[in-house]
């Protein structure tokens, strides 16, 4: 199931941090960096949205990402596209093999129903945070709102369908599973570590995730993502136009 074009780059990371489960964060990731997410304990979920900081109305577009690459799952070789036909980042390494991008987020009502309500007074930072409110909080920091919330990626959660289209959370990552994203343009990354909305765990899952940033290797002509399909080659041409006139990136 797993595909690896290059190993996870934790060893030479310039920055690494650990996010507890049920948390949220946002950061600017520059073109030429590789972001590696590692599921520390197994069963993690990382919800992620992507925006162009120079033009925030440009954002991750799940339908374009899926149909440009004729895929329902995301794994190594795939690129995450913006609604403007550009590539935010490329999945250059993935030990898990199937990440969801159609199920959206857990909501406060659902989390309360399954695991009890969110209560900071009692639970402090181990409160039952949900994915939707996590995104709302982070988006507001950039002047964005629910209107800016597109379909997100859910890393480390495999959602498959049967012939009739029935959805199920069929597999979750094991401890040590990692996925690496090579950023092809400056990107505002908004993420949370809240449970996948189809997670049926008996207790609220608190699954920590390591986030590491390292310089990416320069794009080679035989790159896995560039050559995954003719569509991706054209996506890279759109990025080249976008960066025309800028100094070429250095690792």
């Amino acid at each position: 199931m797993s595909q690896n074009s290059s190993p996870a780059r934790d060893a030479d990371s310039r920055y690494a941090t650990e996010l507890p489960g049920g948390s949220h964060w946002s950061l600017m990731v520059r073109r030429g960096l590789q972001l590696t997410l590692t599921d520390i304990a197994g069963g993690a979920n990382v919800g992620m949205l992507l925006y162009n900081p120079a033009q925030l109305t440009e954002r991750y577009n799940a339908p374009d990402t899926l149909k440009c690459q004729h895929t329902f799952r995301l794994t190594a070789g795939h690129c995450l596209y913006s609604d403007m036909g550009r590539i935010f980042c490329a999945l250059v390494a993935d030990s898990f093999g199937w990440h969801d991008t159609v199920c959206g987020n857990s909501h406060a009502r659902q989390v309360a129903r399954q695991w009890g309500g969110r209560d900071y007074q009692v639970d402090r930072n181990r409160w039952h945070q949900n994915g939707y409110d996590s995104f709302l909080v982070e988006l507001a920091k950039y002047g964005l709102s629910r209107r800016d919330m597109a379909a997100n990626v859910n890393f480390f959660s495999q959602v498959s369908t049967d012939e009739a289209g029935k959805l199920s959370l069929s597999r979750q990552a094991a401890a040590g599973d990692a996925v690496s994203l090579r950023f092809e343009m400056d990107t505002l990354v908004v993420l949370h570590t809240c449970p996948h909305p189809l997670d049926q765990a008996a207790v609220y899952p608190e699954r920590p995730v390591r986030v590491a940033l390292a310089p990416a290797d320069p794009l080679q002509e035989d790159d896995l993502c560039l050559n995954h399909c003719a569509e991706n080659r054209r996506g890279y041409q759109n990025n080249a136009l976008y960066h025309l006139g800028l100094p070429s990136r250095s690792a």
Partner: protein
Amino acid sequence: MIKHSQLEVRHARRRHTVRAGDYYIAGLERGQTLRILDLEGNQAADTLFYSAADPGERYSAMDTIRAQGNVYLTAGTILRSNEDNAMLEIVADTCGRHDTLGGACASESNTVRYGLETRCMHACRDSWMLALQEHEGFGLRKVDITHNINFFMNVPITASGELTFADGISGAGKYVELRALMDVIVLISNCPQLNNPCNAYHPTPIEVLVWDELIPA
């Protein structure tokens, strides 16, 4: 699931033919029923819904498919909002399956899908952009244009996780009908795509019909 309508065309309050490459934008009141009719077959009606009272609340593909546990839309599907509220119900469907994963065509994604030389060909998103500009009163902006429904499109998922754009399962005269559970804005692009074999490279008109609330017999 195939389910026929009991509504009679002669009782429809409004009827509009929407030609390929044009858009339709209008309010639909709670209790009213909207029918989208595929006049010639295998056409894609790219459709979005917004709460009329609060356009920041809108159709959400993710909430809809998650709540019903199924990626395909058909009779019985409740279309849900980004606030996880019920917006409309599909009450009749003679096609049997509609897509909400593939999104709409845009001139920008067309460059990726079909070639850089397709950049200036008309696309659904450009129809929507014009609709927003010509109908500012609805309060919609580019950020409100998201993950739509493709009525009459067939986009099956394989067991190994591939997305396939199969031949249409619609045909001339097939329709889908939705009853509004709240006051909504309906925004449709009748898809102008000339590069996709699923409409035999020949986009065709659709008709939109609206009935008032059913009066018990």
